[in-house]
């Protein structure tokens, strides 16, 4: 399988800004070595303790944060990249990549004319306004306009911030939070996903670029859906993103991550970490639409997405719900999980993963039942087309003290064509006999009967495929917040264009 994707190493990405390379080159040959010179905009290629120090210094981080990063880095050096997932990709040379670049490094384009017409056509199909398209594509000077476009107007953004402040909600970039709320960050960072959790998470701990911090105080129902969309001006956070959301007793928050439009990104390797903590009676709803560049039809140039997402249901009757629509990336390695410690706490995982062409997705969830009366639901819908590979990998673990727990798992796979693969790999570990576990799995092909029926009523082939696929994914899509659901539907259709017939 490793020969499926012939991708250049990250440093050879043609998009990499020449200026960035030159700057980095100069640093590499800097005769006094490279010492946290925070005047520099770029860290040279490769990863060592100095690079970690540089990143931390660039962000004005306190000593404890630097120490934390360094500890992670030392750990990471002793770790091996995992190889158990059903994905194949050329070996990644971690010393041949850049780990810090100031926002400016992003290559700017003079106008939308320079953008790949395929990407533009997707923007148009999604109905994204021109101004917003320019931001997504990274057109020079588009930023200001875009903020307006995304927010509707700057004043909306301000209103939005003020309203959150009034409610006592903290919604900041993680870098800001480290400086402004060090005690809160210190208390929770790495508590759900420990530093040594896995190779990619540990790497993230050492070099995370930026991300989001959300804190919902006791009893507060966050007055609006929080979206990274609103933070589109926080640039260059995509590669090693770090998110931490804490919901205190009896609070509620719905968080939307991602964007339906395919983001241009010169960084091929993405390794994000997301940690959620829900206290007693708190609920966190985390929705993702991931549509990073999947590579061309042969899989060249696509993003590798190695994500660690985990939620801790700490308090009794707390609830964490993950909903994801994954259509992008060349390689996806992602298992949003719930650790159900609180009594009667609830974990949910709703997923649609679409793979087309040469895409590979190995995704699923872990539901770890430690508390009594804990419940979890897993609904996974895999859609494979082209010559792609789509694997559901899930673990349901019932601990010895978890009395009367329940899990329901349903994994459905839909195949479009004969050359794609769908795999279901459920692991079930039960250490308490009172557990009730149900697992259902189906695999079906999109049926000629359905396609012809829909076409006979007036839908063209692509509309017919989209309709049937959306129907297949309905149980998951209905979990998405309204405005996201509409975009996600369109996205499914676009991702599967040309996959039938």
């Amino acid at each position: 399988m490793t020969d499926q994707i012939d991708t250049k190493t990250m440093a050879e990405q043609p998009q990499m800004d020449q200026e960035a390379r030159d700057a980095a080159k100069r640093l590499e040959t800097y005769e006094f070595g490279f010492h946290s010179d925070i005047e520099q905009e770029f860290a040279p290629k490769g990863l060592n303790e100095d690079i970690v120090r540089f990143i931390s210094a660039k962000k004005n981080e306190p000593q404890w944060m630097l120490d934390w990063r360094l500890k992670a880095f030392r750990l990471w050096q002793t770790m091996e990249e995992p190889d158990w997932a059903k994905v194949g990709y050329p070996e990644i040379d971690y010393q041949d990549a850049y780990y810090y670049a100031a926002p400016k490094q992003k290559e700017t384009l003079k106008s939308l004319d320079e953008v790949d017409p395929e990407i533009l056509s997707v923007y148009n199909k999604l109905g994204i306004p021109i101004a917003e398209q320019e931001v997504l594509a990274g057109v020079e000077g588009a930023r200001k306009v875009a903020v307006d476009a995304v927010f509707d107007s700057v004043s909306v953004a301000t209103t939005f911030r003020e309203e959150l402040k009034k409610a006592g909600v903290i919604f900041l970039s993680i870098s800001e939070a480290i400086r402004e709320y060090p005690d809160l960050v210190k208390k929770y960072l790495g508590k759900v996903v420990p530093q040594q959790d896995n190779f990619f998470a540990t790497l993230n701990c050492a070099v995370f670029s930026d991300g989001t911090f959300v804190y919902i105080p006791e009893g507060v129902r966050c007055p609006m859906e929080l979206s990274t969309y609103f933070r589109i001006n926080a640039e260059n956070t995509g590669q090693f993103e770090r998110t931490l959301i804490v919901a205190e007793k009896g609070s509620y928050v719905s968080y939307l991550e991602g964007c339906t439009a395919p983001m241009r990104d010169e960084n091929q390797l993405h390794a994000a970490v997301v940690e959620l903590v829900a206290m007693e009676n708190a609920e966190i709803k985390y929705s993702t639409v991931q549509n990073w560049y999947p590579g061309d039809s042969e899989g060249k140039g696509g993003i590798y997405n190695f994500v660690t997402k985990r939620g801790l249901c700490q308090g009794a009757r707390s609830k964490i719900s993950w909903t994801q629509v994954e259509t992008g990336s060349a390689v996806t390695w992602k298992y949003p999980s719930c650790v159900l410690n609180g009594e009667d706490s609830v974990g949910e995982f709703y997923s649609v993963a679409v793979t087309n062409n040469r895409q590979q997705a190995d995704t699923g969830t872990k539901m770890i039942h430690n508390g009594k009366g804990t419940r979890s639901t897993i609904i996974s819908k895999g859609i494979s087309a082209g010559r792609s590979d789509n694997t559901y990998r899930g673990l349901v673990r019932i601990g010895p003290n978890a009395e009367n727990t329940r899990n329901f798992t349903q994994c459905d796979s839909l195949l479009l064509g004969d050359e794609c693969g769908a795999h279901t790999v459920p692991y079930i570990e039960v250490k308490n006999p009172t557990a009730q576990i149900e697992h259902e799995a189906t695999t079906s092909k999109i049926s000629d009967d359905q396609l012809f029926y829909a076409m006979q009523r007036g839908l063209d082939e692509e509309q017919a495929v989209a309709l049937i696929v959306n129907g297949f994914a309905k149980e998951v899509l209905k979990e998405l917040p309204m405005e996201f659901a509409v975009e996600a539907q369109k996205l499914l259709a676009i991702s599967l264009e040309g996959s039938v017939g």
Partner: protein
Amino acid sequence: MLKIENLHAEIDGKKILNGLSLEVNAGEIHAIMGPNGAGKSTLAYVLGGRPGYEVTEGSVTFDGQDLLDLAPHERASAGMFLGFQYPVEIPGVSNVQFLREALNSQRKYRGEEPLSGGEFLKLAKEKAGLLKLDMEMLKRNVNVGFSGGEKKRAEMVQMGILDPQFAVLDETDSGLDIDALRTVGEGINSIMRTPEKSVLLITHYQRLLDYVKPDKVHVLAKGRIVTSGGPELALQLENEGYETVAA
């Protein structure tokens, strides 16, 4: 309106239609009867443009245009409707969503304005009422969990909403009880009995023809029309069977 000449068609290299000719004028209802396996459903699929049904010879003109040249959705938009012998289930897609999307897609093809949600619901309600189908059924997923009779009535509601010029109804009467048969028969008349529209009614039984009076009756056997006549032919078939009449 529809002119089929010397139609030959095959599936997977197996010849099913062998020189079938048939002409249906505007305002006419024709019944097609014939033994199992004669090729009746195949004819319906060929008219609908189902992939895999290959026309090897002959022509079909519909409203002056070459029907065989059009993709299935284009035929639908041009006014060709197929009532399926076995209506298909589409999980996760409600009838309302399905039909609104289908209708607006047809309208777009014809250069007409799309119907708004409100306008569509009003139309759907009217047609459902005509077929005595509860609106709640239309909010459910397409044919999922519908009884045989409900599927056939829903099929006719779809026809009412899409308002075709030409309908090929493939054994729409099978699986219906007496009352449903009457409802469906009356529904067909009210939707399709106009001077501009035509119907090709595939059936095994005289009883539907009691409600929907055919102008002509044809017997299809071994992939071609072997006999044609007036409504009396259907009665004769019912009494004597295909063996003697089609021989």
